[in-house]
């Protein structure tokens, strides 16, 4: 049974039609590369899946059951995690604070519950260790390198047992070595049966980890193919519109 199923999803922003009649299904442990030109609607699609806004039309199912996600918290409760494009980090907060943003660990202090700084530093440190990233939980994001910021954004997705991890251009602006780490992490998620949607403009990255490629063009799905039955040339054609549909 697919972990995620979208049927005829559309999304308008006023007069702009960002997504138009999109249907797709993703199986557990499947890595899907989501590609398309700038403004094609990739981020809009994953943000919608992550509960940032509702679709204008269409429905969404998880594990066969229909879900309506009004808020990011609800999406996380269903096991959906996301790395946002440009990472969505707060520069003025520490790495640990960013990892836990929106789901802070707390402990009881009499009648009130207070932030559990120690617990969050420890857990964040563990996650950075798992990611093999030299990132200090107490450092401010402002002082961090691109790769460390990346690690913080990815660590967020590892806080809970996810079923579906969405990654919106996680390999933009990081070094070759770090790109390899991210791709390894994606394979690792796949091996645990977690489904991954990877948005990237980098053809080699997508072809090296994805099982399937979905191409969006101006808000429409124009291709949905297994990688071994496609090629970078064909995908490029589909993205630019040189190839109408596949």
């Amino acid at each position, binding site marked *: 049974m697919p972990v995620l199923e979208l049927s005829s999803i559309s999304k308008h922003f006023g007069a702009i039609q960002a997504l138009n009649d999109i249907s797709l299904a993703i199986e557990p442990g499947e890595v899907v590369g989501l590609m398309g030109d700038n403004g094609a609607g990739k981020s809009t699609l994953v943000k919608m899946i992550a509960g940032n806004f509702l679709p204008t039309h269409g429905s969404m199912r998880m594990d066969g059951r229909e879900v309506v996600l009004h808020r990011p918290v609800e999406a996380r409760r269903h096991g959906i995690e996301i790395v946002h494009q440009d990472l969505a980090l707060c520069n*003025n*907060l520490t790495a640990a604070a960013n990892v836990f943003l929106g789901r802070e660990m707390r402990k009881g202090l009499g009648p009130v519950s207070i932030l559990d700084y120690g617990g969050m530093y420890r857990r964040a440190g563990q996650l950075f260790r798992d990611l093999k990233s030299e990132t200090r939980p107490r450092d401010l994001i402002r002082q961090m390198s691109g790769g460390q910021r990346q690690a913080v954004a990815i660590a967020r997705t590892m806080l809970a047992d996810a079923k579906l991890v969405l990654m919106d251009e996680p390999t933009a602006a990081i070094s070759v070595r770090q790109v390899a780490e991210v791709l390894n992490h994606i394979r690792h998620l796949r091996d645990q049966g977690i489904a991954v949607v990877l948005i990237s403009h980098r053809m080699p990255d997508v072809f090296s980890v994805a099982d399937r490629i979905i191409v969006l063009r101006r808000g429409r799905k124009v291709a949905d193919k297994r990688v071994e039955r496609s090629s970078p040339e064909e995908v490029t054609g589909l993205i630019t519109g040189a190839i109408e549909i596949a």
Partner: protein
Amino acid sequence: MAASLEQTIEQKQHNWFSLLLNSQAFWVTIAMLLACIFLSYSTDAFATSKNLYNITRNVTFTAIIALGTTMVIITGGIDLSVGSVLCLCSMVLAVTMHAGFGIYTGIAAAVLTALVVGAFNGILVAYLDFPPFVVTLGMLSVARSLAMVLSNNTVVFEFGPDHDKLLALGGGSTFGIANPVIYMVVLALLTGFVLRWTRFGRYLYAIGGNEQAATLTGVPVRRIKVAVYMISALSAGIAGIVQTGWLGAVTTNIGAGMELQVIAAAVIGGANLAGGVGTAYGALVGSALIEVIRNSLGLLGINAFWQGTFIGSCIIIAVAFDRMRRTR
């Protein structure tokens, strides 16, 4: 390799000492202490218990509001209406009590007024995406005008049956400490606790740091913004209640220009108008520095017209210091 990764992650880059040296509030405290030491030696009148009592009490009205303003500034907002809200709440309290109601009814009415005004500001800013500068500038005008309507622009100085209780609330002292100072300390501790230890406080910083990111990660940005404008108005309301008790009379021009003074206090104390930075202690120490300057000019026999120049310079120097520390 594993060991070195471990070490790097565990490493603390900042100890408490470097954090202290990096805090603007710390340097402002030093500056204020130096000024106090200088004044105690150069004037006889400064270090008298009467003068110190006056300074600490005068600081409170600015400081209480500066606590609320600091919270708004941390979210990247601004509240220009606090001076007028102070006036409106004082007037609501005065008129209610003058009409024969008890002190608790009067305070409840004033607090409710503050919360309604704050909610109005907050809803316009958070849900209708109005710029906070414009909304609160409008409210600055509206609230003072309502206070004039309410009192028919007269001075209220008779507060009905609970008259004496109100005067004791604001003018009295407990164990030799002026009551307003006690309220200020309690409110500052509360604000400091909320900012550092609660999820609400954490979200204020997150919103000020990157509102977009806070929204995307599921921080209830809009509700928090409404709450923070309500807190700001409430702080002005509380200051108004206390000040009414202290002055023993309310006119429609109390709190005029207060908004700029509290913003100055917050900024001197380290709050950043771009959002994301600020502390409760900074609000106190910023307010204190302003009051010490004001007080000292009088004692040193310097023309009061210079006051603005000194306070303005303090703001600019504080921000210049901040920039220097950052670029270093």
